[in-house]
């Protein structure tokens, strides 16, 4: 009797712990598997475009779906596309990277700054209220930001900000030039920044709030000012999570579709030559052109958009790796290591 119970118990424990191991292993593998599946399916779907376009896809700034209403076809490597069709990604890649870069440059200091202010420099009541709104803002659908950008930001850039910046900072490359409607690179960058500030703030704030209180107390007891505590204790400890927050924001900016579509000016066939130039991003182009691409009887337009999606996917991964790499390099340099600077 007693023997069976004794021997049964650990066996059941072993089985359930093995099941648990398998389950958690599957769960851990799920995310990369899903990502990989999407990428493979997309790549297969894009294959006709890859073959038809060859290297031109990566080097051309021209994007033209060609004559979709009958007419003759252009056949390469046995694959047909409409007459006059041309698929080059450069305009969209440039628009995506530049608008996201502007967004990051604006949003990172603001986002981290607000997070620091909330955790270290504001009364608890105020911090709670502001945090609530930050989280609310992080959940607002992007089309709302787009509409705000279109109705408020764009006219303002066109009438005031653009001409002003052009006049004062016009000597810096990219800052000069006509602002025109206000639709374009700057508007896209700012809308993206406004969208990702709440993300960066919310994640950084959580990370900063998790820094052990004892550590901050010890800093205080050593006679550090609150600012020194933030700079040398809180931020270094929270740094991995804060970098994660920035990467999260960057991912959102690179992939944002709707909001950018509404304020970008939807440029085709021309690269931006200043901050106020109309642009298109990869994501917004895919969304905007899918409808007309579907009418392409050869299917090439949709395949080309799929290739654009694959490239966007790869760029997102690549940029994430690059950011991590840059941060690692900076960490070795004296810029971030304030505390270790010294003279001989």
């Amino acid at each position, binding site marked *: 009797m007693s023997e069976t119970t004794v021997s049964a118990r650990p066996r059941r424990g072993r089985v359930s712990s093995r099941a648990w191991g398998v389950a958690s292993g599957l769960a851990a593998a799920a995310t990369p598997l899903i990502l990989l599946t999407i990428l493979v399916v997309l790549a297969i779907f894009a294959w006709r475009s890859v073959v038809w376009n060859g290297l031109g896809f990566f080097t051309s700034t021209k994007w033209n779906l060609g004559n979709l209403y009958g007419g003759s076809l252009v056949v390469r490597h046995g694959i047909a596309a409409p007459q006059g069709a041309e698929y080059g990604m450069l305009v969209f890649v440039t628009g995506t990277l530049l608008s996201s870069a502007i967004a990051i440059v604006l949003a990172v200091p603001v986002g981290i700054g607000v997070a620091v202010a909330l955790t270290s420099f504001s009364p608890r009541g105020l911090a709670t209220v502001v945090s609530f709104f930050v989280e609310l803002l992080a959940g607002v659908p992007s089309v709302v930001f787009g509409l705000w950008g279109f109705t408020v930001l764009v006219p303002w850039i066109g009438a005031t900000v653009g001409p002003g910046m052009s006049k004062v900072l016009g000597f810096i490359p990219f800052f000069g030039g006509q602002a025109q409607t206000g639709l374009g690179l700057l508007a896209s960058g700012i809308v993206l920044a406004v969208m990702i500030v709440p993300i960066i703030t919310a994640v950084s704030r959580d990370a900063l709030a998790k820094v052990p209180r004892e550590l901050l107390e010890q*800093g205080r007891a*050593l*006679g550090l000012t609150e600012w*020194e505590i933030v700079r040398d204790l809180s931020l*270094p400890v929270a740094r991995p999570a804060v970098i994660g927050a920035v990467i999260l924001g960057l991912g959102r900016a690179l992939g944002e579709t709707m909001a950018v579509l509404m304020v970008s000016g939807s440029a085709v066939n021309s690269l931006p030559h200043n901050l106020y130039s109309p642009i298109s991003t990869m994501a917004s182009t895919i969304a905007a052109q899918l409808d007309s691409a579907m009418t392409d009887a050869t299917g090439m337009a949709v395949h080309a958009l799929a290739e654009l999606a694959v490239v966007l996917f790869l760029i997102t991964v690549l940029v994430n790796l690059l950011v991590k790499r840059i941060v690692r390099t900076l960490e070795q340099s004296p810029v971030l290591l304030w*505390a270790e600077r010294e003279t001989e």
Partner: protein
Amino acid sequence: MIREEDATGREHRDPGIVSLPEEPVDEPRANRAMFVLDGFDLYFGRAHILKGITLEIPSNQVTAIIGPSGCGKSSLLRSLNRMNDRVPGMRVEGKVLFEGDDVYGQSVDPVTLRRRVGMVFQRPTPFPMSIFDNVAYGPRLHGLAKRSELDRVVESSLRDAGLWDVVKDTLRKPATALSGGEQQRLCIARTLAVDPEVILLDEPTSALDPSATTRIEELLQRLAERYTIVIVTHNMQQAARVSEDTAFLLSGELVEFGPTDKIFRAPDDRRTEDYVTGRFG
């Protein structure tokens, strides 16, 4: 024997007992008062945490604060370097003087005060830096940037904390790699490096094993030659071993303050006696 005599009158001072252990200790000391507390009250919101505390903490010796959990030992210690400032609803009445200056006065900057009154906590928490930088950090903030000077301060602080021989070859390693006792000595070295006048310690050995504890106790006695040391401890033997004066707190009141020998062998107050003999607490 002593216990019986004391049991006769609670607050009654028995001159026969007072004169016994006190004399030899008291004579050569001749220390000045580093901290003077005069009718000091501390409130956290409505809670009255410390009640009318009056005592003098002499310089260049170890003073212990003992008492049951929650009686306000930490609060009292943290009142000395204004570490309670951020507690919501914190309010003080009465005076705390540090070398004659009112600690809670308008002109006192807590940041400056804390550089003169260092503090070591129960759980050692090294900063997220190398061992060297942990110790060099304070002096750097004070403007010391010369490499040779920093090297000297770091070495002497680590030597004083009894850690130099352990870490002298691994100064660039992260401080978190040290053992708990070593981390605590590193925290002491970090405090020493800014050259404070006072070191406050809040149960500094309660997270350490006996041999690490012994090392810290020996260290404190050595440091008392140059620094004023105030230690909160739950360990009666520790208080008896390291301190010259002991304050016994109960429910926010200072029940008794005097030479450690006397507090442990012939206290005036019945409650002190009950506590040090382990009858409650």
